[in-house]
């Protein structure tokens, strides 16, 4: 277990491991938004929370295809499946590693990017909170999607298609929290829903992922 986590982190930090790339992608997307919708800061301020959430979501999404597919291609997934580790814990560990290397940095970077889109003052706190609560769900759900598509070569895009709809609830509530926070409205309800979704996803999805993975391995 620990060994697996350590290995995945090590791989992520090694050359080509792609740590920080998700972050860079987040940054770039945020920069591209004004280019596409125009520079009026008032407009940007209104869409800022949503854009940041969407950006974080996409950055998460893009890093998913490495999650299991690499292990699949070089055969280590076969070997892990025959190893004395339950596949459920394998996928959980992988999701955790993914969150540490992708979700966490996004949460920490979000406020800085908020400045670029001049997010209104109170928004920052709620943005960080909602992301911190939401990104774990993104990782777990993403792992499920990765498990579904692991057999396909370069299934990256298909993966996005499968996962994006699953991301919708998280996105809705997360963005809602951030938006309400930015406009100073109460945020309790969406926050609760968000937390609920995350908790449920973490509790249940690993089993689904493991089952799917078993099917893909045969």
């Amino acid at each position, binding site marked *: 277990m*620990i060994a697996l986590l350590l290995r995945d982190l090590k791989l992520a930090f090694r050359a080509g491991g792609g740590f920080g790339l998700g972050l860079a992608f987040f940054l770039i997307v945020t920069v591209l938004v004004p280019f596409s919708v125009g520079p009026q800061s008032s407009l940007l301020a209104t869409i800022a929370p949503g854009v940041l959430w969407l950006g974080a979501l996409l950055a998460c999404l893009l890093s998913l295809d490495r999650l299991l597919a690499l292990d699949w291609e070089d055969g280590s997934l076969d070997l892990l499946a025959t*190893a004395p*580790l339950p596949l459920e814990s394998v996928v959980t560990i992988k999701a955790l590693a993914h969150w540490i290397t992708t979700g966490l940095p996004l949460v920490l970077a979000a406020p800085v990017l908020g400045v670029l889109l001049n997010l209104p003052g109170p928004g920052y706190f709620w943005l960080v909170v909602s992301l911190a609560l939401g990104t774990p769900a993104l990782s777990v759900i993403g792992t499920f999607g990765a498990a579904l598509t692991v057999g396909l070569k370069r299934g990256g895009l298909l993966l996005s298609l499968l996962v994006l709809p699953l991301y919708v609830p998280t996105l809705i509530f997360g963005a809602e929290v951030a938006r309400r926070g930015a406009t100073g409205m109460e945020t309790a309800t969406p926050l609760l829903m968000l937390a609920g979704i995350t908790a449920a996803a973490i509790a249940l999805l690993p089993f689904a992922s493991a089952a799917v993975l078993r099917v893909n391995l045969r």
Partner: protein
Amino acid sequence: MTLTVTDLAITRGGVPVLEGLSFALEPGRALILRGPNGIGKTTLLRTLAGLQPPLAGRVEGAEDTIAYASHSDGLKPTLTVVENLQFWAAVFGAKSIQTALDAFALNDLADRHAGNLSAGQKRRLGLSRLLVTGRPMWMLDEPTVSLDRNAVTMFADAVRGHLGQGGSALIATHIDLGLDGEVLDVGPYKAKPKPIDDFDGGFL
């Protein structure tokens, strides 16, 4: 710990490839799988390793006793030789990787990234993994691919050593390994094409 296979039938991509296969693999024995390309050796090994369910028949004594080595070695190109081995050692709870390194003469490759080993060097690393699993039954799929002569002998010695300690091995190969184990040619067990008129659960 004996592996007993009784009247096994296996499928690949939904098509039965082998059927009526029965054999036993006692400790200390090696069994060499032979058969033409595409007969189903890989599929058989995967089935025994528990990666896919058999179509029919029983497999006994296979749970958590099998170390499987497939066509691909499961190496991480950006990890060094030692790191790769240590990971598997940790997963299988082995204490030392030194014996594995020695057995396949990997000591002077020890801190190279697996990514820039040559084909045969990679293969050696992949095989050395077997030694850290501590599993009694080895299932090897064409283990000597792109190994040079003395690497092949290294491998044969490793297998003999394993058998010596009461382990057993099931090896699918097309070349002669100089191992004295009985040979099982799976050719005769090729699944007969089912009559296509009765159109049952298998759509055949």
